[in-house]
């Protein structure tokens, strides 16, 4: 099994498309950081207008932690695309390239192979998120230093400097589960497709539609909202509250994991009986 996973990872990391995600994050994140470094102060002022009426501010809120939080919040919709680029191709790419004919005629059970591919996809996702966390934090801190983190929701939260890092790391951890869910969705679509464009587009369509439905506050949409997995993807933000609502976070993580299992299960059921015609 390990050898199969290693083979799949070797295949993933032999391809240019795999590095698109790493390059995109490697460019996008510093860009956001530099922009914030230059202009972030104005944004914070703007966001805190009404507090300014009652309070004098002492100290600096523009720091690497804030940049990291903002990056997490803004890249929420973009990272799935970078992930799907690879995970949506895991099965469909073999179908499109005709390589299933050499791959599935090896003495390896389809279930094992599928699992190896799935695990490899999860590892790729983790690597991408780790990369994002690494440059978001390290570069952000290098440019802007550390400091207290302000998070503006219905409540304005200000977290002491020494109370931030674990929250950000936990948020990345939760984000990873959310992105694994995205990866699983695209993997499922990938098992049905014979070209990799289909699963990529389909995954993004599902995610964007679900997010739109969640955002529109109509009674019909409110009813379906709990059934949309995207609804649980944003729960990393719950780490930026006091006290942290661990029950809600665990519930969201549970919902996402349930979806991961469901998506993999469907992919497995489909792949096991699939006739390879390409």
């Amino acid at each position: 099994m390990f050898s199969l996973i290693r083979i799949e990872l070797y295949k993933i990391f032999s391809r240019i498309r795999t590095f698109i995600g790493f390059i995109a994050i490697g460019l996008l994140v510093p860009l956001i950081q530099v922009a914030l470094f230059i202009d972030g102060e104005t944004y914070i002022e703007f966001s805190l207008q009404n507090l300014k009426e009652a309070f004098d501010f002492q100290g600096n809120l523009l720091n690497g932690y804030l940049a990291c939080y903002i990056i997490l919040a803004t890249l929420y919709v973009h990272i799935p695309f970078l992930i799907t680029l690879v995970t949506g191709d895991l099965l469909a790419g073999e179908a499109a390239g005709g390589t299933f004919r050499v791959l599935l005629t090896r003495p390896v059970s389809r279930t094992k192979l599928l699992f190896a591919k799935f695990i490899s996809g999860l590892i790729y996702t983790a690597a991408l998120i780790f990369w994002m966390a690494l440059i978001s934090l390290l570069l952000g801190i290098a440019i802007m230093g550390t400091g207290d983190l302000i998070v503006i929701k219905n409540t304005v939260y200000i977290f002491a400097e020494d109370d931030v890092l674990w929250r950000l790391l936990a948020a990345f951890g939760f984000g990873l589960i959310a992105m694994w869910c995205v990866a699983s969705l695209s993997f499922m679509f990938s098992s049905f497709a014979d070209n990799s464009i289909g699963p990529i587009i389909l995954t993004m369509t599902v995610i964007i539609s679900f997010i739109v439905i969640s955002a529109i506050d109509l009674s019909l949409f409110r009813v379906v909202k709990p059934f949309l997995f995207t609804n649980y993807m944003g729960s990393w933000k719950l780490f930026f509250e006091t006290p942290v609502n661990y029950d809600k976070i665990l519930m969201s993580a549970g919902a996402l994991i349930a979806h991961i299992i469901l998506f993999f299960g469907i992919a497995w059921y489909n792949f096991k009986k699939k006739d390879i015609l390409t």
Partner: protein
Amino acid sequence: MKKHFRFSILLVLAILTFKASVAQEKNAALILEGVKKKFALVNEYEASVKIKVDVNFVKIPEKSGKIWYMQPGKVVVKTPGFSLLPKRGMNFTPNQLFSGDYTALYAREEQYAGVTTQVIKVIPNSDADDIILSTLWIDTQRNVIRKLETTTKSEGTFSMQFRFPAEIKTYDLPDQILFNFDIRKNELPLGLTGDFENQGNKDKTPKNSRGTVTITYLNYLVNQGKAIPVFQKKSK
């Protein structure tokens, strides 16, 4: 005769009333003067502070830091990270409050926080002043203000409650000040750290509410020159 008697009573009453009011005015001015004099002893100080903000839609941990004060009303506060300081009153000194043209009226004697205080109303004479009315609860025993309530045109009312250590020192500075003020909750611009998911949730916090900031002072170092370099640096 009856009429005359009546008149003289009224006259006496009038005189008495007039005398009383003059006495009160004097009284108020005197009391304030005592406070001013007492405070004027403090030229500068450095102290450690703990700042606790209590506003229903703001969550910020208690901050520890340092405060430096210098006459006539310069204040610098430094805390690690970020802190919210009450906009009004952080640089409050009696001198400053009564620097302008004002009318002080003695109102009454009142028990406040277990001490007998003299209540004095201070009304600025200028219409341009933002302050409409200030009420002070003054502890004439120690010549310190125990409580201050101010109504302003633009920012509603705010109050400051001063807590003093039991032991009376030469420089009688509070060990805690409680600021209480109006705060309006505007729709917070979602801006950068916007929370898209919760946008639909109805905001349950009232639009207008009170906020308090508690500042605890520790380890005053008064007139030891500690604050001077801070302000020298600042003016540079």
